[in-house]
């Protein structure tokens, strides 16, 4: 359970932030900010997909709601940025409940298709209304915000939100809610017979996923300065899906690794030109095929091998009870 370890983790993260701040600025910091934002979004998707086994291919849609919600609140209603993001996230949580409705009866393939369709529909809707800026999208007046505190503000804000997302992920998954979700994923009938309300938990999972996704989307819009439809189209949904799978679904820190993969690989291979996308795709397939537990699964296995004696003790303890 949390306390000591959690506090240590948060402290470690804060130290890391500070160190990054010392050594990294400008463009690298922008890339790291994107990494945190994608991690935050993947944390949300990991709740429905990793723990609830509800396959959502529409997570980009929640990020879209976050980005456009923030943009609309700022540009049309004059909200300040933090309030705009909060509004967008709250709105997205409601949207999440509605997107979750089909999940009450659908699973696997059908659910993936319906959520995918949701993402594409949103993407086309914002593209066709002038209120949301049409095909160009909406530019956010954030040059001041981006420059604030020498560009550090958004970096720290993203870090803070990612930590919050992590904490929320942790408390959901290690609590009654998380267990209920995992039980539903394992067997719905059994879950019901233990008094778990399927609809409530599925919708809760989608609402929380939407909330985190929208926070990430809003931050993304602030950091890039634009809420453009193409950014939040079906490709983003696939990207987030890939990030969760690559990191290791159903693992608390998996989203961070997965997001690092999808952000870092294209960035590091930028010099390879058109070959970059091929490299990315090959690595993606390799990770998914060779490491079904994702990158984190691989690290855990490696760790377990390295610390063999510990495991042997555990096995011995297990055998001891058979008398």
């Amino acid at each position: 359970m949390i306390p000591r370890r959690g506090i240590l983790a948060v402290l470690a993260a804060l130290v890391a932030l500070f160190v990054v701040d010392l050594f990294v600025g400008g463009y690298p910091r922008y890339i790291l900010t994107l990494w945190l934002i994608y991690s935050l979004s993947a944390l949300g998707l990991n709740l429905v997909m990793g723990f609830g086994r509800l396959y959502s291919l529409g997570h980009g849609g929640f990020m879209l709601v976050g980005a456009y919600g923030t943009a609309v609140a700022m540009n049309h209603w004059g909200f300040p940025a933090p309030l705009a993001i909060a509004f967008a996230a709250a709105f997205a949580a409601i949207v999440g409940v509605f997107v979750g409705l089909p999940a009450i009866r659908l699973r696997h393939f059908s659910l993936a298709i319906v959520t995918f369709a949701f993402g594409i529909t949103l993407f086309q809707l914002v593209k066709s209304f002038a209120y949301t800026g049409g095909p160009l999208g909406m530019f956010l007046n954030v040059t001041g915000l981006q420059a604030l505190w020498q560009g550090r503000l958004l970096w720290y804000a993203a870090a803070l939100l990612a930590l919050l997302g992590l904490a929320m992920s942790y408390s959901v998954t290690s609590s009654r809610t998380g267990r209920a979700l995992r039980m539903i994923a394992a067997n719905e009938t059994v879950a019901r017979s233990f008094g778990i309300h399927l609809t409530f938990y599925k919708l809760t999972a989608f609402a929380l996923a939407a909330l985190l996704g929208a926070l990430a989307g809003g931050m993304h819009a602030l950091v890039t300065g634009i809420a453009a439809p193409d950014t939040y189209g079906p490709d983003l949904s696939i990207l987030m899906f890939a990030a969760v799978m690559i990191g290791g679904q159903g693992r608390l820190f998996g989203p961070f690794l997965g997001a690092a993969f999808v952000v870092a690989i294209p960035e590091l291979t930028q010099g390879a030109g058109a070959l970059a996308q091929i490299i990315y795709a090959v690595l993606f397939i390799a990770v998914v095929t060779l490491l079904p537990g994702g990158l984190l699964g691989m690290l855990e296995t490696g760790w377990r091998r390295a610390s063999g004696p510990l495991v042997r003790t555990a096995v011995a303890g297990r055998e001891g009870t058979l008398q």
Partner: protein
Amino acid sequence: MRRSLATLGAVALLALSAAITEAVAEPGVDDNRILLGGSNALTGPVAAVCAPATYGAKAWFDKVNRDGGVQGRKIEYNVLDDGYAAERALANARRLVQQDNVFAIFGGCATATSAAILQFLSSQPDVPYLFPWAGMSELTEPTKKGVFALLPNYVFQVKAMLPYTIQHANQKPKTGAILMMNVPGVEDMRKATRAVFEANGITVVYDELFEVNVPDHTPYILQLKAKNPDIVLFGDSAAGAAKMFLTMKRQGWHPQTGFGVATLTAEQFLDPVGDYADGWLSAAGVVSPPSAPEASECNDALKASYPDQKPNHFTMFGCLAAKIGVEAINRAGRNLTRQGLIAALEHMQNYETKISGPISFSPTDHMGTNAVVPFGVKNGQFIILGPPLRPAQ
């Protein structure tokens, strides 16, 4: 255990990001090199149209470098692919300016991506942004410090040439239609078109927008056919317009008169369509067709650098942009600064490129061309219908 792993990951990322060092030198210029950056759709739905603009410009820079460069410096032109996605264009612009420290952003193509770059540069007003192939009015209206354009915007194209097309139609059109791709600036253009139609006593019977890269134009053409307008304004990418024209051919209908925006003066449009558009289509052109004698200089440069690239409207446009860019850098002198370049451009008056009308900029007007060339189609080839046109005041 998991926490240690996460810490490990964080440290690795840190190391990685620290490796990407921060440069703080004077942007993009040293003793023997000028670094220009660009973002263009080198792949994706508009690549065939847009990428040649980059090749045309690069080829011209190569030629200039072979001849000794500009004021003793070679021009290096680094173009990143944006796949015609605004967000990637934005990221590219950020990378070019903040990471690669380019002297200026040069070229580019298509409206959405140019608009994104424009947005990014609003926080970097000193960075020159030269000659994207984009027809939106926001580039130069209002005038922005570092932004210069060559392609007359869509509204200008419509105002300058649609009245001419209506007057020269075989039969005076009574009903009109607008079929446009949904790109930024489209609303202004619709308004301008409606105004011209109205002024000429034409009733608008159909007005639809469609998405970029729509796979199948059949529903639009069926509806158009049912309304049977006399004149139609077509606004689409070159390949998209070609698809649309072939769909009309399949459905056995076309309007008496068609008017196309500048994209329809590209070979990528006409080659698949062939002689189907003969005699009823006219379009607003900017730069001489590659078949014109004055285009040979550009074509030769292209052949030297990109032997596989066929000369077309966009290689010509890239060549034109590069010519003007080189001239401005030259005029800015050996002590090259961004300020100097902007000043040199603002004092450029009636510069003769040979492949377009005279180019003029001023501190209040950053739009270099002020006329369009009326293109028509005959035997599946572009022909120039007459002298350059300006909007009636």
